[in-house]
C-alpha cells in the first residue's frame, strides 16, 4: 500500500510498472484496475492553460489513508497505489493515479472506483484554473456516476 503526494510531474504508467515489479507477486493476484486522471486544456467552456493544485499537507495523507483502509475493509484487495499531484500543472499532466490489485476483478474495479470517488469528496485538494481572462477556483466536482449533461 502506497499513498503519495507529488509536487513534480509523474508518469502514472511508469510508476505502476515500478511499483508492481518491486513489490507484487503478480502470479498470485490476477486482476488490476487502474484510474488515471489527466489535466484537460478546457473546463466549463473555457480554455485552461495552467492549473494550481493546493492541498492541506498532513490532512491529505491522513484522509487518503483512511479512504484506502475503509475500501480495503469493504473489498479485501491485495494492494493499492495512490499518487496525487499538487503544485503547478499544465494540460495533459497526470493529476491522479489510483490502482488496486486483487485476485478478483469485481473487487479491483469496485475498490478502485470507490477510492477515487472518496478522494474527490474528502481529500483536501483544491484546483485553481488559469484562463485567458484570469484565475478561478474550481467550485465543485463533477458527478462520477453519470456522464455530464451535453453542452
Amino acid at each position, binding site marked *: 500500500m502506497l499513498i503519495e503526494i507529488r509536487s513534480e510531474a509523474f508518469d502514472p504508467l511508469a510508476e505502476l510498472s515500478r511499483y508492481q515489479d518491486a513489490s507484487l507477486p503478480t502470479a498470485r493476484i490476477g486482476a488490476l484496475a487502474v484510474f488515471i*486522471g489527466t489535466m484537460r486544456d478546457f473546463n466549463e467552456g473555457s480554455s485552461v492553460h495552467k492549473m494550481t*493544485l*493546493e*492541498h*492541506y499537507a*498532513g*490532512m491529505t495523507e*491522513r*484522509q487518503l489513508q483512511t479512504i484506502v483502509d475503509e475500501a480495503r475493509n469493504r473489498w479485501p484487495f491485495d494492494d493499492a497505489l495512490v499518487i*496525487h499531484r499538487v503544485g503547478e500543472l499544465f494540460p495533459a499532466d497526470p*493529476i*491522479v493515479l489510483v490502482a488496486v490489485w486483487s485476485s478478483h476483478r469485481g473487487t479491483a474495479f469496485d475498490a478502485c472506483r470507490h477510492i*477515487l470517488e472518496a*478522494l*474527490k*469528496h*474528502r*481529500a*483536501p*485538494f*483544491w*484546483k*485553481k484554473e488559469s484562463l485567458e481572462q484570469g484565475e478561478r*477556483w*474550481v*467550485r*465543485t*466536482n463533477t458527478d462520477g456516476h453519470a456522464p455530464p449533461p451535453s453542452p
Partner: protein
Amino acid sequence: MTIRVRYFAALREQMGRAEEQLAFEDLASVADVWKAVCRGKRLPEDVLCAVNMDYAGADTPVKDGDEVAFFPPVTGG
C-alpha cells in the same frame, strides 16, 4: 488557550491570510473559533471544517493547542 487556525484555497484568499494563532479563553467549539475570526458571523454552510486534520462540525469541541482549519468544498482528483 491557544488555537492555530488555518485557511485554504478561496477562503484563504478571502481571509487574506493562510493562518493565525488565537488566544482566547472562551472558545468551546469550532463555531466559536469561526465567530472569533469572522467578527461574530455564523459559519456558512459551504465552509468545511477540520480539527486536528479530521473533518469536524460547527459544534465539535476545541481545546488548547488544537489546529482548526476552514476551507471550501474540495476539488481534487
